[in-house]
């Protein structure tokens, strides 16, 4: 591992005493797989399997992990776009796991999502002004005209020109479309934004614009973020704390510097070592993982990582390690740490 880690004592607002905004407790989301003529459930995909974490107000929690490990499913379940199979979601002090109807509608104003593919998530037939005001119009009776000053203000905030108002999504570049998506997400002044791979489809130059924008807006609007991505360096740049997922489970959570300087879980160690370093003078020790990620339909018993883990011990095959705090603020699910 890279030991040259610079001691970057950047003075940051300490958010560890802020009020809790979101608490997720033992969350499970399973997708049924239907089969046979009767379309009976023949198996389940354990997409999110017993995940617990919390986010404080004004904080950014990054969620990383490889394709299919359940990041999006977790995000969508928290927003109640998917029904949780088990567990609890507490938002701003209120248990929202089972709220429905008008109460759910009311809570939905407080959280928004920004998606990976800005093109697919914007209705191509709608003008930008219309797209950005739509969330507001969903909640009150104001006309588009009444809302125009507010929308223009939002467009300015995300760095789009005024004339964007009368244009259509296809007239914009990928980065600009992502700005439209962000303006839309901001429209209702939400408390929590779940950004699901918001820059994965963008070029580095544009990616940096969008990342800078999200940070600025966080300060200005006092936003709390759940930031989902598979690029650990992007996540580290954006987050206060980072959670690492593997096969539906959260295997490690810590503040971003500890995750990078002192990853404890063998999977986190492999993940960090795999990131290509943009500096040819740094040659790092690489942990190459054997094999592929197993299926979440039939995950390995015990520690789900054991078939690929170089440190696996006999008990890893039968006993599932709990996510436990092993250092202040640093939690890991691995039998190596007792």
């Amino acid at each position, binding site marked *: 591992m*890279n030991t*040259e*880690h*610079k001691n*970057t004592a*950047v003075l940051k607002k300490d958010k560890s005493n802020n009020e809790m905004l979101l608490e997720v407790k033992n969350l499970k989301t399973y997708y049924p797989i239907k089969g046979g003529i009767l379309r009976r459930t023949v198996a389940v995909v354990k997409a999110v399997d017993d995940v617990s974490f919390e986010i404080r107000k004004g904080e950014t929690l990054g969620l990383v992990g*490889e*394709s299919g490990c359940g990041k999006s499913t977790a995000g969508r379940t928290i927003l109640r776009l998917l029904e949780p199979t088990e567990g609890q979601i507490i938002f701003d002090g209120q248990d929202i796991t089972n709220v429905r109807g008008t109460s759910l509608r009311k809570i939905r104003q407080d959280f928004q999502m920004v998606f990976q593919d800005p093109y697919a998530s914007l209705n191509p037939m709608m003008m930008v002004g219309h797209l950005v005001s739509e969330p507001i119009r969903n909640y009150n009776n104001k006309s588009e005209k009444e809302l125009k000053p507010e929308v223009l203000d939002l467009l300015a905030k995300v760095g789009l020109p005024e004339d964007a108002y009368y244009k259509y999504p296809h007239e914009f*570049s990928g*980065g600009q479309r992502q700005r439209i998506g962000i303006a839309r997400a901001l429209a209702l002044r939400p408390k929590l934004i779940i950004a699901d791979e918001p820059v994965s489809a963008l*070029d*580095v*130059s*544009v*990616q*940096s*614009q969008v*990342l*800078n924008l999200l*940070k600025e807006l966080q300060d200005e609007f006092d936003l709390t973020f759940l930031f989902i991505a*598979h*690029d*650990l*360096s*992007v996540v*580290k*740049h954006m987050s206060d704390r980072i959670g690492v997922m593997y096969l539906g489970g959260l295997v490690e959570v810590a503040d971003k510097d500890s995750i*990078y300087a002192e990853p404890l879980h063998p999977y986190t160690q*492999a*993940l*960090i*070592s*795999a*990131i*290509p*370093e*943009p*500096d*040819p*003078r740094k040659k790092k020790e*690489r942990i*190459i*993982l054997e*094999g*592929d990620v197993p299926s979440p339909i039939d995950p390995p018993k015990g520690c789900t990582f054991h078939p690929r883990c170089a440190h696996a011990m006999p008990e890893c095959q039968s006993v599932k390690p709990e996510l436990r705090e092993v250092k202040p603020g640093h939690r890991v699910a691995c039998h190596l740490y007792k």
Partner: protein
Amino acid sequence: MSAKSHLHNDTPLLEVKNLETAFSIDGTYYNAVDNVSFRVKPRQIVGIVGESGCGKSVMSLSVMQLLPKGIGKIRNGEILFDGVHLENMTDSEINKIRGKDIAMIFQEPMTSLNPVFSIGFQLQEVLFNHMKISKKEARLKSIALLKSVGISRPEKIVDEYPHQLSGGMRQRVMIAIAIACQPKLLIADEPTTALDVTVQAQILELLKEIQEVNDMSVILITHDLGVVAEMCDEVIVMYAGKIAERTDVDSLFHNPKHPYTQLLMGAIPKMDEEVETLSTIKGIVPSLKNMPKTGCKFAARCPKAMPECLTITPQLAENEEGHEVACLLYETSRPKTEVNA
């Protein structure tokens, strides 16, 4: 094909001279690759980087003579592979080289593997095209190739179909097909972009190993500067169809000269550095139709642009030994002081 050129390390395996490739849009041709020259030496790994739409893929398709017929054409320039001109070859002539001496792998292994044929069939097809071997030998060689790219249970996988494999395994199969005839040059266009980092690490390690064992040259196209730093000997930075900078990998990262390269470097978040704001490049790569006709094509986005950048086209020229840059800040008639301003 002459073998003697390999005796001299400096003789390029591939030499591209003043290449211009154009696409027809509404009846008019626009250059997507605009007067590009570079060389690839034997055993060298040359990276090509740049934002989306800057001409990386079009350049590699030009070398492979795979431009879409009737839409794209090479307007000008020469492509010399092992001393032989490729740019005017007939289909049957180029077919003897493509897949044998020059092979290519693409970003999305699912679209480049045929879903209706087994893995073994697709491997054997390449072998039959370029070698005189029996069916039985071809099958055995296919299994050996799958094994050599790190696929476990190759005897079983050889009879499976693309959809039965994971993304990483499909990319391994693509590599197996590409190296089946031991090509001298492999062009890899974003070979790991669709893969997770841990799988990417496996594939890059594999590519490097094959390159060393087979004495192969590689052109590696990617937008990931981390991948470049790890894999390449030399790097070409492209912008709007032109080469902005070309140098060895160490100077690219530690002494980038072109403003575009400098900005690209500052735009990536780095694991071991904390910065509040990343550098950005305003605007976007112009489309072919909106390409500026005169001056530096980067001028509209360049923070160091000077009035003459709008009228004078910078030429790619050696600034330090082995380090070429196309920017008016470095053209010799100018005072050096401006450079680090």
